[in-house]
């Protein structure tokens, strides 16, 4: 029985490329990975938004209206609903003038308890040191 921790480090802008969306969908796929693993083995994803990647966490995305696709906001909410650890770089949101009130921090409206965390980059660095594998997106 083992748990492997995978760190998805999201640096890319939302909607400009598919990478940040794929980071979320791959992380969420951890919910069904057991079908390929031995009993008791697990994969635990952690998602860290850094640099331009923090823009993925903005509230009120209108992807369905403009592109006819699900928003990255919805994927982030699904991740929180599944109790995934989600870290947002404090320095990077400050650089971009983004306030916490403008970020997707929780999913209380749909019954989720896990909250996103705004943390200094040093905390993200510690998280990166703690994972088994890093996946930069």
């Amino acid at each position, binding site marked *: 029985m083992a748990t492997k921790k995978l760190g998805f480090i999201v640096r*890319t802008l939302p909607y400009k490329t*598919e*990478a940040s969306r794929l980071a979320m969908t*791959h992380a969420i*796929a951890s919910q069904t*990975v057991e079908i*390929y*693993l031995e009993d008791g083995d697990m994969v635990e994803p952690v998602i860290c938004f850094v640099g331009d990647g923090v823009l993925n966490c903005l509230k009120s995305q209108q992807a369905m209206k403009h592109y006819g696709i699900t928003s990255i906001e919805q994927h982030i909410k699904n991740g929180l609903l599944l109790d995934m650890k989600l870290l947002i770089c404090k320095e990077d949101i400050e650089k971009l003038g983004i306030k916490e009130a403008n970020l997707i921090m929780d999913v209380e409206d749909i019954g989720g308890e896990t909250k996103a965390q705004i943390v200094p980059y040093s905390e993200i660095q510690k998280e990166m040191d703690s994972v088994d594998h890093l*996946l*930069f997106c």
Partner: protein
Amino acid sequence: MGKLTIGCFSSLVGSVSLDFAVKLSDAAVKKGHKVDLWVSGNATMLSKKGQKAFKDYSHLAKTLTELFATGNFQATACEACAEARGYHKDDTMEGWKRHSMDWYLASCFGADRVLHIGGD
């Protein structure tokens, strides 16, 4: 010898990241390692059969065929990403598998090293 899992999102044409991923796979297999290559997003075009070789573009079909023949290399494409792009099972090059994203995470679980090439 170890197991290397490589994941890539980048397209075959328009980026050389996928070219790098396949050549790194080839080098690792030649050193005696096992390699799992996962492609999702635009990278699923690598699994499309019938690719023509032009001097101006990366052409990896021959290298992939040789890699499959070693028995130490497997390549899997994200099924949903491929279908969304119109690459159906019948369009897939021999040797490739198609699965959902959890296959990749499971491969990462069993890997000694993971190299993930995100981005466009």
